[in-house]
């Protein structure tokens, strides 16, 4: 085995491992499984078991159904090794003849990794209908050492599992003994099979079976021409077998060698080259230059996996797919998922109330007592007013609950918008996002999401949230402004004016500017609800307690500053609520989709991907070196099995 191939063996092994790693990583990309690629199968079935091993030759009898493959195989074996039947698609499993002691020197299971090996016991075994890919093997003393001869199932019947088994053997084989007939030489399935074999540069012997001699003597060159033109096969030997069922059954079929290509040496294509007896076929097989053929098939297999539609093609596909993911990810992250410009606001009075509560907690000593006295008067008046109001207008819902109801509407608005936006994404027709989005848009997801948000929304403690916010705000406010208590009194005047308009946008990745209050426009001031009336009354009580001096002392600029403060509380609260919704939507609607997309987009940057790229490059370089060292191996030129052109590789100038 040449040194280059030994090096390649290592590279190929590494490649194989890395490729399955990459496949795992790239599972999100939904690329066809590696197994479905011809080059990968070649890698697994031909290169992995055979690179770096000592040369042995795998010769397989292949062809369409019911054209005498097993007859020919039995002829090669010298006995009825595989059952023959007049019915089509009889042979379902592979039969393998190995030279004596082959099992000691070589591991058959490693050579045929995709088959279950079983000792041959009976020629009928191969007819067994079974899901398992069996290979029945036996040793045969009449074979040369290092030669395996195989019988294969058909390549064109309606039992497609047969095709698969034959394909596996085709990839492993070095020599194909192609059985053709005049009915099948131009069949599409047959041509497809042999076109692949030609690409893999197999060494091909053609046996034209069921020929009517001498009538067909003038036809077979035409048939062969068509076959070779269509498939690209260059058969090294050609035999004709007569249509003689009797002889075939009793294993006495004769094979007549013909020269091919006919027109090179012979002017008359039909001229008989020699009437050789049947045994000759087997001897011809034994006389093949094993080493050469082996090198040729391995070389071409390596070529195929490094060819543009081999591994590089796969990498390209991975890259393309991950680019698609990237664009899908970008699509999601650059477009707003929802824009909310009417998130409801807490009534001013409610905030004022919270501020007051906080403030009360700040007072100490007799001042607190005085305040409490006046406040209870204030609240007494308020209660009376409330009772009257209730009588007049029916019971009112508590303001925070009213806010909750309005907020629920905003939530619905948002969810509605998110869904129509997702629908829009779907209609953009990104093939990756479409199925995911369709699932998201379905009724079950919607119901779940809505239920979930509703539960969370109903259980949210708005009161506490608001209180905490006010406390935090006011604490900083107090530390910033020593005259805070004064400004506080302006609250009610300010409360009427402060109505920030807030618009909120949701993005998929990150929140974008979610919760950033955009636009500060004070709107209509006419908010005189029962609550704000109550606030006014209470404020009156406070005013009475502190006296009236402060009113004159406050400047108008102070009021504006206060107003900004007050608006900030509004904004912050809204922002808090909106980002709460955004977070819910993010986790419960989209889940890990954005991350998955981003991850899939990064695959071509992964070390595995890069390493495979590098290995393929070295492989190509090695192959060119080997080509230069051993220019175009011509089969039959060298007889030596173990000749190593390694020294030449070493001395090759770069």
């Amino acid at each position, binding site marked *: 085995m040449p040194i280059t191939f030994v090096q390649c063996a290592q590279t190929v092994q590494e490649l194989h491992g890395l490729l399955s790693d990459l496949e795992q990583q790239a599972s999100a990309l939904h690329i066809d499984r590696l197994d479905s690629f011809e080059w990968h199968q070649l890698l697994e079935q031909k290169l992995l078991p055979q690179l770096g091993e000592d040369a042995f030759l795998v010769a397989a009898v292949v062809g369409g159904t019911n054209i005498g493959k097993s007859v020919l195989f039995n002829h090669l074996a010298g006995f009825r090794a595989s059952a023959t039947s*007049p019915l089509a698609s009889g042979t379902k499993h592979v039969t393998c003849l190995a030279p004596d002691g082959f099992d000691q020197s070589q591991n058959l299971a490693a050579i045929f990794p995709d088959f279950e090996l079983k000792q041959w016991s009976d020629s009928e075994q191969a007819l067994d209908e079974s899901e398992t890919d069996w290979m029945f093997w036996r040793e045969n003393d009449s074979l040369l050492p290092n030669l395996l001869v195989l019988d294969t199932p058909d390549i064109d019947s309606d039992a497609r599992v047969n095709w698969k088994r034959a394909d596996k053997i085709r990839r492993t084989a070095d020599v194909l003994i192609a059985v053709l007939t005049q009915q099948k030489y131009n069949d599409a399935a047959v041509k*497809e099979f042999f076109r692949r074999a030609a690409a893999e540069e197999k060494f091909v012997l053609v046996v034209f079976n069921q020929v009517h001699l001498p009538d067909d003597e003038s036809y077979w060159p035409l048939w062969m021409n068509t076959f070779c033109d269509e498939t690209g096969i260059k058969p090294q030997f050609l035999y004709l077998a007569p249509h003689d*069922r009797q002889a075939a059954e009793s294993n006495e079929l004769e094979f007549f060698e013909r020269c091919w290509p006919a027109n090179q040496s012979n002017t008359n294509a039909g001229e008989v080259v020699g009437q050789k007896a049947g045994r000759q076929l087997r001897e011809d097989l034994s006389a093949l230059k094993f080493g050469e053929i082996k090198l040729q098939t391995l070389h071409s297999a390596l070529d195929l996996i490094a060819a543009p539609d081999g591994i590089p093609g796969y990498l390209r596909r991975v890259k393309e797919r991950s680019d698609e993911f990237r664009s899908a990810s970008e699509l999601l992250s650059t477009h707003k998922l929802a824009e909310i410009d009417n998130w409801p606001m807490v009534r001013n009075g409610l905030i004022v109330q919270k501020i007051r509560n906080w403030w009360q907690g700040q007072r100490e000593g007799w001042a607190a007592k005085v305040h409490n006295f006046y406040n209870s008067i204030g609240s007494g008046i308020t209660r009376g007013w409330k009772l009257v109001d209730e009588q007049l*207008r029916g019971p009112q819902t508590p303001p925070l609950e009213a806010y909750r109801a309005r907020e629920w*509407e905003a939530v619905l608005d948002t*969810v509605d918008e998110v*869904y129509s936006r997702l629908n829009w994404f779907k209609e953009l027709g990104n093939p990756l996002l479409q199925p995911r989005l369709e699932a998201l848009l379905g009724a079950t997801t919607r119901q779940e999401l809505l239920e979930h948000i509703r539960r969370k929304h109903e259980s949210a403690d708005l009161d506490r949230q608001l209180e905490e916010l006010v406390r935090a705000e006011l604490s900083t406010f107090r530390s910033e402004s020593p005259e805070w208590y004064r400004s506080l009194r302006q609250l009610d005047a300010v409360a009427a004016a402060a109505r920030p308009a807030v618009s909120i946008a949701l993005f998929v990745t990150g929140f974008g500017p979610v919760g950033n209050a955009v636009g500060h426009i004070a709107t209509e001031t006419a908010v005189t609800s029962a609550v704000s009336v109550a606030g006014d009354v209470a404020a009156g009580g406070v005013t009475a307690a502190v006296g009236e001096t402060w009113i004159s002392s406050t400047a108008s600029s102070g009021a504006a500053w206060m107003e900004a403060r007050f608006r900030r509380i509004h904004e912050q609260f809204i922002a808090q609520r909106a980002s709460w919704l955004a977070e819910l939507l993010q986790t419960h609607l989209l889940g890990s989709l954005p991350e998955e997309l981003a991850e899939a987009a990064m695959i071509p940057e992964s070390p595995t991907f890069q390493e495979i790229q590098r290995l393929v490059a070295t492989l190509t370089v090695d192959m060119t070196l080997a080509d230069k060292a051993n220019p175009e191996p011509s089969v039959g030129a060298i007889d030596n099995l173990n000749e190593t052109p390694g020294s030449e590789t070493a001395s090759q100038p770069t």
Partner: protein
Amino acid sequence: MPDAELAQLELFAQVDELARRLQQWSEGESPWQPLNQSRALVRRLLTRLETMRVRLEAPLVIATFGGTGTGKSSLVNAIVAVECTKSGRERPTTTCPVLIAHSETELQQLNLPLEQFEVVRVDSSVLRDIVILDCPDPDTSETETSGSNLEILRRVLPHCDVLLYASTQQKYRSARVLDELDVASAGCRLIFVQTHADTDEDIRDDWRKVLGERYKIPDVFFVDSVTALAEQQSGQRPRGDFAKLQDLLTTRLAAVQRIQIRRANLLDLTSATLTKCRKQLGEFDPAITSLEETLSEHRQKLTREMSRELKSQLSACSHLWEQRILTQVTTLWGSSPFSALLRLHSGLGALLTSASLYRARSGAQLALIGAMQGTRWLTARQKEKSAEGRFEELATLGINDSLVREARLLIGGHLIDSGMDPALAAPQPGEDARLETARFESEFLSNAKQRIDDAIERLAKRNSGIIARLWYEFLLLLFIGFVLFRAGRNFFWDTVVDPLVKVLPMDFYVSAGLFFGLWSVILVMSFCRRLKRGLNSEISTMADDVAQQKLTGGLFPDLESAIENVHRDRHRLEEMSSTCHRLQGNVATSSELGSPRQLNAETVVSASSSD
């Protein structure tokens, strides 16, 4: 006309009727996407049926079918006993379809693309009622490229009525040929022939096994075409299976059988297509069902919510009830002292009511106030609201529209699941979602209004029976009588008998008036109380009744009518399908012809697309 023939004609009329119904069904655009797909499938079927119908009476077209080298051309030559199409040993031999017809057969009526064929006229008795089309093979072309045998074959086969499927020992399990047969056999009868009897072994039993699952195989002929041709040319009569085959071709495919065979083919195609459509649409059944469930669930939820609200509002405003019932009672009673008193009371009440109209918070209260005024006010208010654009709550019943919007969100999901147009749940263009709620609600209320009127009438009748009336009249008159008695006795007797006694002073009348006022207030109040007896139970039964009622308009009228259409179309499809099956049973063809057991519709369509 003989009965059998009449029955035959009737059958054919039914087949035509089926085709007409198919035509009708396949027209139009539905918001349900799967239905449109099925309709497209049926439309394609119809174009193929049309070509079949045109040549209903023309000679049957027998096409050869089979892998290359199976001796199709040799078989044709043997059948007509003349070497008319080239048979050979090079594959493929036949690339251009050869049409072999009797010189008297008019080819125009076959409606075939004659320019694509090579036409050969042979005056053989076999060809009296049929034409034979020798087709290229399906298995030498790897892909269906233009000009390839496969492409030619696929173009030609939909024009055929009977397939003469030839195969050999080598080829009978060839996957490509079997796959192609799947497509080719759509809408065809089949004849199976194993050729090469001279060299090959008889594999007919195994072949039958291979095909048996998908095809009805009455007979498989095992023939040697070459010998048969030679024998006939040397003047001998054909023997064995070949003679049987020839007999089948001449007798079973004779003119009388034509229409029947074609109808059977037509029904096969139709049945396959309809089965496919049913399957296609059936997949969406669960989605449609859950859509309907969600729809009715939300409708119920909304109605329930509204009736709950209705109940609470109606029970909240008892004075309005009182007013209405009082008015009702006074109209019932006509004039009497107590009735006059009540009228006075209700007159004052009406004044209050008209004031309260401006304060009425809800449609329910409006319904109570009265239909006329209320409706006018409600419409005015709705108009005002739609103009207003955004408003916080649709306050007529106090139901906020988030219920409707939740329903819309969920139904939107169901629409996507079931393949319906999502726009069906979207609000009407230009109509605010809230208005939709309002529309729903006003329907709900107009239902309620009638019931309120009924309830008032009932309450009024029940609580103001003649005894009650007499009792109250008596109590009222008792006071008046007492005062009159006192005043009369004083005036007519006491002052006359005892001069010391003075005529009752003014003070007496003032206090009498005062007590009269008090007395009548007590009476009226207790009467009103009595009137309201049973009101609460009346309200709750009414609210429950209204909730039970199915509102005609529904929440999403477009969607609901779309669903109705879906059901109708599905139903019609089922009907046509069962008709088709029944007819299939009735149109019996000769038992010596094979046919596919179950066509799959993809093959029907792929075949018809190449028409």
